[in-house]
């Protein structure tokens, strides 16, 4: 009998100026609310892991999540991964001290692949995740850094293998083209990558329906899926709204509906997957 696959259900929260934002193709900074309130609700509803990304950290050369990580880690009892602008050992230490369980690195690794090696030696493979953003352009795949801004002449397949060789514990692979559209994962991408590397791969970008998760799991050897739009656009109605002072709040102003009935999408997704022979927590 074929062994059932176990999949981790993870959510990613992009944070700017302390607010949860959500773009499309990693562009646009639509504000959806208070990330702390979202993460608490997700934890209550059974999310397996939470991934925070400060997605303007590399752009501005800053690293602002510490206070925020601490606040979240105080009440969160599932793994917390943190990424965005981590470019030296000191930055990594700071993230862990404030309660992160894992750090995710992208831009810094592209500029200096050996950095991953250094991090792994001190913190262990298990705690170092490499985030890869991949953009499909003219039918070819490239990788990018600085949250989809600067494209590099490397392909994600070679890059993932290289990062595995340098000791990364897992890879979070984001399809920038699919990201934010809710039209499904880039199935070919994950199929190909999971045939090349053996460390865990997390699929991120494009999930819109429960079915999309099932498709990518059946089609490749990933260890987990990372969901953003699919959850945030639903949960923004269930979560306590805090005063937002900066950013593109137009969508929230026009769409926030506190009367909307709360549905535990995380449980429903897991039930759907279980019914389709996929194990979840």
């Amino acid at each position, binding site marked *: 009998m074929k062994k059932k696959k176990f999949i981790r259900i993870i959510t990613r929260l992009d944070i700017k100026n302390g607010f949860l934002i959500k773009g*499309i193709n990693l562009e646009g900074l639509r504000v959806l609310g208070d990330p702390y309130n979202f993460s608490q609700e997700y934890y209550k509803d059974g999310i397996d892991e939470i991934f925070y990304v400060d997605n303007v950290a590399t752009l501005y050369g800053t690293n602002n999540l510490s206070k925020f990580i601490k606040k979240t880690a105080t009440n969160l009892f599932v793994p917390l991964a943190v990424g965005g602008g981590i470019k030296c050992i000191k930055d990594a230490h700071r993230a862990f001290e404030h309660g992160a369980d894992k750090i995710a690195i992208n831009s810094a690794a592209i500029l200096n692949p050996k950095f991953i090696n250094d991090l792994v030696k001190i913190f262990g493979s298990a705690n170092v995740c490499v985030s890869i953003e991949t953009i499909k352009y003219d039918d070819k795949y490239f990788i*990018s850094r600085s949250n*989809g801004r600067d494209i590099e002449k490397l392909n994600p397949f070679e890059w993932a293998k290289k990062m595995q060789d340098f000791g990364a514990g897992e890879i979070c692979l984001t399809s920038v083209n699919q990201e934010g559209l809710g039209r499904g994962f880039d199935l070919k991408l994950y199929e190909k990558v999971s045939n090349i590397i053996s460390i865990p791969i997390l699929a991120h970008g494009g999930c819109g329906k429960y079915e999309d998760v099932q498709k990518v799991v059946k089609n490749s050897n990933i260890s987990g899926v990372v969901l953003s739009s699919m959850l945030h656009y639903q949960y923004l109605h269930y979560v306590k709204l805090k005063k937002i002072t900066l*950013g593109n709040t137009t969508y929230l102003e026009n769409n926030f509906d506190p009367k909307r009935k709360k549905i535990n999408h995380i449980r429903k997704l897991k039930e759907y997957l279980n019914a389709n022979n996929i194990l979840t927590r």
Partner: protein
Amino acid sequence: MKLKAFYGLPKKVVFCKKTLISNQRPNSELEFRHNIKTIKKTVKIDNRGLSDAWKYSLEKKKINYKDREIKLLELLDMHRGKHGKYDCIVPGSGGKDSCYASHILKFKYGMNPLTVTWPPILYTSYGLKNFQNWLKTGNFKNISGKRNEELMKFLTKSSIKNLLHPFQTFILGQKIFPIKTALKYKIPLVFYGDNEAEHGNPIADNVTSLRNKSFHTLRDKDEIYLGGIKYTDLINKYNFKTKDLDVFLPPTLSSFDETNIEVRYLGYYLKWVPQEVFYYSVKNCGFRPRPYRTCGTYSKYSGLDDKIDDLHFYTTYIKFGLGRTTYDVAQELRNGHLTIEEAKKLIQKYDGEFPSRYFSEIMKYLSLKPKEFFNIVDKFRSPHLWKKTKQKWTLRHVAYK
């Protein structure tokens, strides 16, 4: 030390405290008369350090868009289905603004817009895809302007040489072609998008103002300059045909006789938040941002269909000390999407970035040697803005210091 200021630009450089734009930024140009001797009208910054655009953005917050929408509905009711198959014109090329405008007019307000395009000089592959998706997803009929490509190339090259303004003829066509199309097909309502520059005026042009513009332009052909070259020279010296040049000229006076044309800004009636327009166009019109950051700035969703666009902003940086990042952050600051510190960091990081991606291709296309181009560039650096230290040019004044 008194420094000379080119183009009649204000000698003292002042930055708006809230949007970081400087008083060197020119207002819209009367492109027909544009030659090297033209004195530019520029953005006003008052003695409190606030620009008009900033003050207008504060006014904008008080607007009641419910009322505005009612006005829009009244306007649309007057035209819907009343002019044959198409009842309004939306100019554009499949960028986020034209996608949004045309889509919302058709699918929310029940209009049947005719899309009109003055094609980019050099289409980017993803820009072309956006254009095609735009038409396909909206099932829009499109009329694209045709021009003599040799003439277009010549004028583009000349406008670089004479004005360091590669987009001059493109901008001209962009403004004129939709009007001519409206007159030709007798569709009197033309919708542009954002009315940012117009400070609260819904009407860009009506038949009177357009007629006046045509009148003044066509009256004295000696006064017309295209690409910095006199119209009469283009005919007599460079042997271009009048029928080819015609496409760059405003409509004839007689063409106004039958149509009571009106050009309006949709952005007057609907709250125009560029980022939200981006999301809308991705969701509904198949629009996709550039696969990488636009040269000279930090974003990916604006001005991405013409390869010459990057070069254009490089020239604004040379002539006015204002690159693409400055324009982009000014807009985001007005919308409350960025902090001043962030804006300053972005300007420092990206403003004036050399447009390397398409540069060689453009030079080849125009048969212009890069060395020649750089000589032209240096000629246009106004001494009151630029100084040269040890072979390197630097701006005397920047927004982030």
